[in-house]
């Protein structure tokens, strides 16, 4: 396992859409290095032949729309009403003409 540098922290912050000033970058570099050092403990484990667990009950999830007992992975495609537009937009920071307003992403000059 690798250690982490301030450059690495800046890269990860960009991936996570976060930004830090220099002081915060130093702070996070130091803390994450310590945490990752602790996590390095997992290297003591021999895991080449161990399957990963992503979910505890992989075969017991609700199978919607199963009529013949056979496993289905999709639920029936039924049209249902969604939440009223005004209720959903009530939480929006800058609703605009029935849509979510965001800063311009398309340059009009092209």
């Amino acid at each position: 396992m690798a250690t982490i540098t301030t450059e690495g922290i800046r890269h990860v912050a960009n991936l996570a859409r976060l930004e830090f000033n220099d002081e915060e970058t130093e702070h996070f570099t130091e803390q994450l290095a310590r945490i990752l050092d602790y996590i390095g403990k997992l290297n003591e484990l021999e895991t080449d032949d161990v399957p990963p667990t992503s979910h505890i009950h992989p075969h017991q999830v609700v199978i919607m729309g199963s009529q013949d007992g056979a496993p289905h992975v999709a639920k029936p495609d039924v049209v249902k009403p969604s939440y009223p537009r005004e209720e959903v937009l009530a939480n929006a920071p800058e609703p605009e003409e029935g849509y979510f307003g965001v800063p311009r992403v398309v340059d009009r000059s092209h």
Partner: protein
Amino acid sequence: MSLYELTAHALHEKLKAREITAVELAESVYARIDAVEPDVKGYLTLTKDIALEQAHTADVGFQSGDDMPPLAGIPIAIKDVICTKGVRTTCASKILETFVPPYDATVMTKLHEQGIVMLGKTNMDEFAMGSSTENSAYQITHNPWNLDTIPGGSSGGSAAVVSADTAICSLGSDTGGSIRQPAALCGVVGMKPTYGRVSRYGLVAFASSLDQIGPFTKDVTDCALLLNAICGSDAMDATSVDMPVPDFTQGLINDVEGMKIGIPKEYFTSALDTEVADRVHTAVAVLEQLGATVEEISLPHTEYAIATYYIIAPAEASANLARYDGVRYGHRNENPEDLITMYKKTRSEAFGEEVKRRIMIGTFALSAGYQDAYYKKAQKARTLIKSDFDAAFEKVDVIATPTSPTPAFKIGERTEDPLQMYLSDVMTTPASHSGLPGISIPCGFVQNELPVGLQLLGAPFAEDKVLRVAYTFEQNTEHHLQKPKIEKNGVVS
């Protein structure tokens, strides 16, 4: 005894006999809130108007002589990570300061079907990330047993309000111990059901493969009643398990004769407070006297549970929290120059430090070049931890451990050192990885009356066995009857 001090099942009898009304009960709890909430600070939002209306509706039902559900008219507090239609749901984060859900979580729909009285929304660590509730963006919650100490976390508010009698019971959520640990530190009963028992629809997601909603109560009987109300498969949550929900009150059997209880030696290390260890050993001895067979077992991968947890949970969190971008709800940066800047400034302004730290760890663990070394390695370690439990439950019915390695610690004591705070979860994360049902029940006190919790774990879907051992212990001891004296400046409330 005042009404606010009673259990839900005792109150149900009084409501049914029409000795009391639900409105009187709600007024009693709000009077208690007026008296001690300024010191405890367990609530982020109080919903008294809604509560009194719901209480009135319950009274109409009781007066009509209808057979009312066990939780009708019972005042319940809800962790502020569970969506409540029309009532602000903040996750104790600035990023959701103004968020009002347009829908109820499935657990809320189920509780409203029973006719509960919703008292308000409780404080927590921001997005349920923490072990002390100090990561709330709004306030510090104080442990009713000693106001200078933390209530545990992340569901610290939900634990503290039950302990302080400012709620009859409450709901919390448990990802790595966030129900069990605060229940232990506040001296109440707290249970995480088997992963998949309770729908997560409307539970604001932290780590989806671990998150589970569960109850805080004053005794084990109330715990079973709340489980009955909230469990069950749900078409809105594909990870909810399609299994019949038993009547959990059938597990309330005051007898452990012939039951096998395993004591994992790996939980009794030098990191465990000696007084806490002593109370847990005493509790196990009580169960042995009552007829249980006790044997030492080994869960050899226990020491890897925290490292595994602090990869898996942040990795899932980094994906789940990507939705807070300032577009559809919550905080948005003012006048950003472009979209990417808006995302970055919105998130950096409104997330607290611990949330950023976890997003950073998780993003790193999932980033190109590191995914196999960290995330996949942790998933494999998770398999080993789970296999330990699978093997143990071949031999024993229930596993008994301390819930927390220490009693409640002082406010501010661990905030400077995130790793030290993470190690608070050492007793609870192994069962989380394995999706097991686990309860924490009061089993004594240390250091001038700080509560100690006994954690009882069962095999998946064996809540009945866990409840049986917990109930038997409770019926033969008096720890759960102790109440904190909430003392501020020498005045006892």
